[in-house]
C-alpha cells in the first residue's frame, strides 16, 4: 500500500534526523556542566565535510568508494517504510519489517568489507566486532517482532503501531515494557552509544563503528555521518511507535506527539550515556544475551 501523503513526512525525517544527535550531545553537555554545541552543529559539520576534497588510501578498491553510498542509500530506503508513530509510512506491506532490517544488513555488509579493504588492523578489529554484535542483535530484534505480531495480530509496521492501543497496554503492559527496553538496548548497540561503544573517541579500545570509518574523508564521511543520524532516527521511531498509545486521527497532533516522543528518547539516550561508563568489550555479548533472555520472556508471555 502506498500512502502518498506520507511522502512529505519522509522528507521531513531526512531533514530532522540530525537534530536527535544534537539533542543527545546537548543532554550530555548539560550533565557535564558545559553549555555544549549549538543545536544545528551536526548540519554545520555535514556542510563542512561536503565542501572538502577527499583522500583515498592506495590499498583500497572501488568497494571502499561505493560502501558509503550503499549504506546511506540503504538507511534512506528504510525510512520509506517507517511510520511516524500512528501516521502511516509511505510504503506499507505485509512483512515490511523484514525488508527494513535486511536493508540495514546490506549497508552493514558493505561497511564491513570496506573496512577490510583498507588493510589496516584497526579497521579489521572494528569490522570483526561489528559482525559479532549484529549476529546477536538480528535474532533479538526478530524475537521482539514475534512478540509484537502476536500481541497486535498485525504483520506490517504501520498496522503494528496502530495496534498499540491503551487497551493493549493495560492487558499486556509487562510485555510491552520489556519490548521497549530491548529495543532501547538494541538502539544503543546499533548506533554505537555508551555502554556499547563510545561515539566520541576513535581509539582502538573503544571502537566498533567509529573505527570502521577511520579512513573516510570529505563527502564520503558526510554520507557516513548523515547515515548514522538516520539510523538513530530509525530506531528511535521504532521505539516511539511502541511507546505511544494515543491515537487521534489528526495528523498534526499525532505528528507532534511522535516528535515529542523522539526528543524524549534522545534525552533518555543522553542521560544513559552520561550516567554509565562503557562496558568492557567482553561483557557486551553478555548484555546482549541478557536482552535475548528478556525477549524470550516476552515470547513466553504472549504464548499463554
Amino acid at each position, binding site marked *: 500500500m502506498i500512502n502518498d501523503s506520507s511522502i512529505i513526512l519522509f522528507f521531513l525525517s531526512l531533514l530532522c534526523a540530525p537534530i536527535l544527535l544534537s539533542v543527545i550531545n546537548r543532554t550530555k553537555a548539560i550533565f557535564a556542566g558545559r553549555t555544549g554545541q549549538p543545536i544545528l552543529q551536526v548540519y554545520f559539520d555535514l556542510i563542512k565535510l561536503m565542501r572538502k576534497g577527499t583522500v583515498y588510501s592506495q590499498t583500497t578498491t572501488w568497494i571502499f568508494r561505493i560502501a558509503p553510498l550503499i549504506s546511506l542509500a540503504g538507511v534512506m530506503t528504510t525510512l520509506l517504510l517507517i511510520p511516524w508513530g500512528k501516521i502511516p509510512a509511505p510504503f506499507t506491506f505485509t512483512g515490511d519489517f523484514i525488508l527494513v532490517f535486511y536493508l540495514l544488513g546490506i549497508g552493514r555488509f558493505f561497511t564491513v568489507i570496506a573496512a577490510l579493504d583498507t588493510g589496516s588492523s584497526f579497521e579489521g578489529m572494528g569490522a570483526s566486532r561489528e559482525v559479532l554484535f549484529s549476529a546477536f542483535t538480528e535474532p533479538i530484534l526478530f524475537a521482539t517482532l514475534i512478540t509484537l505480531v502476536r500481541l497486535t495480530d498485525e504483520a506490517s509496521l504501520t498496522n503494528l503501531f496502530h495496534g498499540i492501543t491503551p487497551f493493549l497496554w493495560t492487558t499486556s503492559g509487562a510485555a510491552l515494557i*520489556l519490548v521497549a527496553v530491548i529495543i532501547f538496548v538494541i538502539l544503543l548497540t546499533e548506533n554505537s552509544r555508551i555502554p556499547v561503544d563510545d561515539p566520541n573517541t576513535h581509539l582502538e579500545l573503544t571502537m566498533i563503528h567509529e573505527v570502521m570509518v577511520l579512513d573516510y574523508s570529505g563527502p564520503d564521511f558526510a554520507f557516513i555521518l548523515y547515515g548514522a543520524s538516520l539510523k538513530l532516527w530509525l530506531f528511535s521511531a521504532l521505539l516511539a511507535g511502541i511507546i505511544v498509545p494515543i491515537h487521534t486521527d489528526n495528523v498534526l497532533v499525532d505528528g507532534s506527539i511522535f516528535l515529542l516522543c523522539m526528543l524524549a528518547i534522545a534525552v533518555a539516550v543522553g542521560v544513559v550515556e552520561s550516567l554509565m561508563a562503557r562496558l568492557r568489550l567482553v561483557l557486551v555479548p*553478555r548484555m546482549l*544475551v*541478557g536482552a*535475548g533472555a528478556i525477549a*524470550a*520472556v516476552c515470547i*513466553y*508471555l504472549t504464548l499463554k
Partner: protein
Amino acid sequence: MIDLIFVLLILTGFVFLGSGRLQFSIRTLAVQGILLGLIPLWGSWEGLWVRMLSITTLSLLIKGFVLPYYLTRAMHKSKVMHEDHPFVGFTTSMVVGIVCLGVSFWLASRLPTLGGTQPQMAVAVSFFNVFVGLFVIMSRRKALTQVLGYLLLENGAYIFGVAFAIEVPLLVELGVLLDVFVAVFVMGIVIFHISKSFDHIDTDQLSSLVG
C-alpha cells in the same frame, strides 16, 4: 499489575544468572524480597486487614532488609566480592535460564489448576526460581553464592505457597520464614567456620577433604 511483579521476579532470576558481583546479587535478592513481600496484598483478605498488613511488613523487613544486611556483613567479613570462575560461564548460564523458563511455563501449563487467587504465571515463576536456585548452587564456587542460590530456591517455594493460599495459613508463612532464618544462620556459621579454619571459602576446595 501483579503480572508486572511476576515478570520482575523472572528478571531478577536472570540477573542472578548473569552477574558475578556479589554485592549486586545481594541487592537483587533484596529487591526480590520486597516484591515477594508485596504479593500477599493481592490476595482476598476480608476482615483480616491487620493480619495481612503485619505479614506484608514482616516479609518486607526480613526478606528485603534484614537478610541482605546479614549477607553483606558475611561478604565483607570473608572478603569475597566476586564470583570469578564459575563452572558454567555467565553467558551460558543465561542461555540455560532461557531454557529453564520455557520448561517452567510448560510444566505450569501441565499442572491441573487448583483453586487459588493467583494466576497460572505464579506457578511458572516459582518453578523458574527453584530451577535457577538449584543451577546457581550447582554451578558456582563461592559458598556465599550458594547461600544466595538456596535463598532463591526458598523464594520459589514461597511463591508457590502464596499462589495456592486460599485462606491465610499464617503458620505456613511463619514456617517458611523460619525456614529461611535457620538456613541463613546455619550457612553463616558454616561460612565463618570455613573462612576461619581454611584460607578461603571456595567450596571447590572442599572436595580435597575427601579421601
